[in-house]
């Protein structure tokens, strides 16, 4: 296997409703990424393009439709789709292309436009439930999160205040991200007092609906060293998929993520992730999920994450800043693009280019993770400089 590095990154602003079409959003992110490393589309050997359900756009075979926006026309181009985990999995997919020796460069572009779906994108997630044994109950996407959050809180005696701390942390970080769709700081009280959607989930426990795109350029070692003196290496990748029988699993612990993380650590030669990883970007569509994922990633002991968060361990000046980008809660959640935004953050943070929200102390090793489907899938990338 060849060593693979990130040599460029770029993204659009994340907004509630964008003027741009999905193709235009993909183009903006991809073009900005190419410009960031002084390359043109001719320098791109292949494209990995990610977008989540076709139903959001109402366009069947959406990946093919999108190829001119993602730069994939007349090239080996493939769509990646593993639900919410798409944004990180597309990076894993691109890594395969380059590590295998087939291609010297791969442009990874992930896009989501959720605002087209009427009356609300959430409605389209109904088809994720088992068509016969669950959909007859007229479920709501929020149910699976509410059920998992309640089980997780019960297992460790966490409170709603505890969970809100993660929302406050991430949203505060996100205020410094130039692509964020938010402008206001929130307090634990704001989260607790926000509208109750599905106990224990309140409005501010949840990331927003967003439109946006993000991209990364991957290159094989010799090319990467020619392009930049600061390549950000993909040190480890991992992914895992559990069964769809979600109600028969222990919802308090994501065992598929445990497996995905260990796969990435083994490849990266990491034995003590909680000590070795400098910055963590766990997937945070809901505040509790950031904490749940920190435990699955072995970055925090089970049931001790809130204590560490309270002690500042995961703050910007702590031992392992959590979601320095602001995450989905602080920047926005255009599904596939949100995961790639986390990988972009590793690129900027490890190169020392994150500006106002730069993590101090020259972080050298970072992790990004995304999650999706019926409590089922996770993809993990470990990057280092």
């Amino acid at each position: 296997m060849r060593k693979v590095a990130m040599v460029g990154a770029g993204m659009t602003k994340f907004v509630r409703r964008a003027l741009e079409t999905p193709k235009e959003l993909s183009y903006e992110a991809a073009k900005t990424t190419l410009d960031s490393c002084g390359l043109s589309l001719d320098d791109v050997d292949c494209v990995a393009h990610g977008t989540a359900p076709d139903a959001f756009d109402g366009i069947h075979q959406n990946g093919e439709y999108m190829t001119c926006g993602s730069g994939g026309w007349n090239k080996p181009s493939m769509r990646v789709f593993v639900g919410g985990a798409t944004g990180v999995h597309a990076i894993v997919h691109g890594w395969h292309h380059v590590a295998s020796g087939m291609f010297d460069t791969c442009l990874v572009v992930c896009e989501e436009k959720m605002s087209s779906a009427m009356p609300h994108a959430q409605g389209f997630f109904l088809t994720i439930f088992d068509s016969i044994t669950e959909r007859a109950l007229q479920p709501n996407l929020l149910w699976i999160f509410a059920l998992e959050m309640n089980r997780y809180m019960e297992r460790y005696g966490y409170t709603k205040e505890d969970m809100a701390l993660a929302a406050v942390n991430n949203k505060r970080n996100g205020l410094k991200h130039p692509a964020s769709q938010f402008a206001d700081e929130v307090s634990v009280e704001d989260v607790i007092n926000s509208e109750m959607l599905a106990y224990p989930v309140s409005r501010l426990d949840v990331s927003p609906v967003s439109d946006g795109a993000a991209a990364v350029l991957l290159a094989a070692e010799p090319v990467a060293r020619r392009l930049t003196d600061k390549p950000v290496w993909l040190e480890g990748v991992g992914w895992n998929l559990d069964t769809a029988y979600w109600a028969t699993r222990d919802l308090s612990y994501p065992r598929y993520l445990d497996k995905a993380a260990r796969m990435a650590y083994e490849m990266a030669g990491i034995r003590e992730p909680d000590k070795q990883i400098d910055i963590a970007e766990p997937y945070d569509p809901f505040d509790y999920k950031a904490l749940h994922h920190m435990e699955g990633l072995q970055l925090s002991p089970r049931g001790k994450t809130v204590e560490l968060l309270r002690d500042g361990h995961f703050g910007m000046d702590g031992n392992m800043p959590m979601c320095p980008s602001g995450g989905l809660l602080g920047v926005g959640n255009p599904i596939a693009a949100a995961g790639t935004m986390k990988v972009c953050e590793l690129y900027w943070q490890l190169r020392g280019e994150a500006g106002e929200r730069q993590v101090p102390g020259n972080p050298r090793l970072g992790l990004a993770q995304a999650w999706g489907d019926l409590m089922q899938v996770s993809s993990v990338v470990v990057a280092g400089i």
Partner: protein
Amino acid sequence: MEEKVKVSGGTGLSGEDIKSGKIFLMDDSLDCAYAWDTGVAINRYLSELQKGRIIATKCRKCKRVMLPPRLFCELCYVPSNHWVYVQDTGVINTYSICHVHWDASRIGENEKPYLPAVIEIDGASDGMGIMHLLGEVDPDDLKIGMRVQAVWKPENERIGSITDIKYFKPI
């Protein structure tokens, strides 16, 4: 420290931009229809629900009593065609009190919140839960670990569906 974060595009629209006609929209709707075959295992499950009973399959290899029943054990990857009845009682593994409809619209003042739950069914293996609804309970009284029992629809109203159980109520 110099910021080199590259951001371009993502032009935010307001409701006013759309209402005022500044932005053109193209509306469309899809009307998709499906008729799903229920399959070997779930067909038997549904036919037993119609009779007021819950049936599971047991894996002869790992001995798990599995709900919903399945044609094969996904862990051992062998057939699981040994059928066993389980109870219509169980324990709340987790629950929610949901104030929004499937499309994120809010429930009305006179509507009761949805009470979805994962219920671990007595007689199935540990942790084998199914998603269903709770009823005949004040939401504030709900607790994880509470024992519940199925409330069945009258026999002549059962159609061979998971909804032949109206909901589970505390016992």
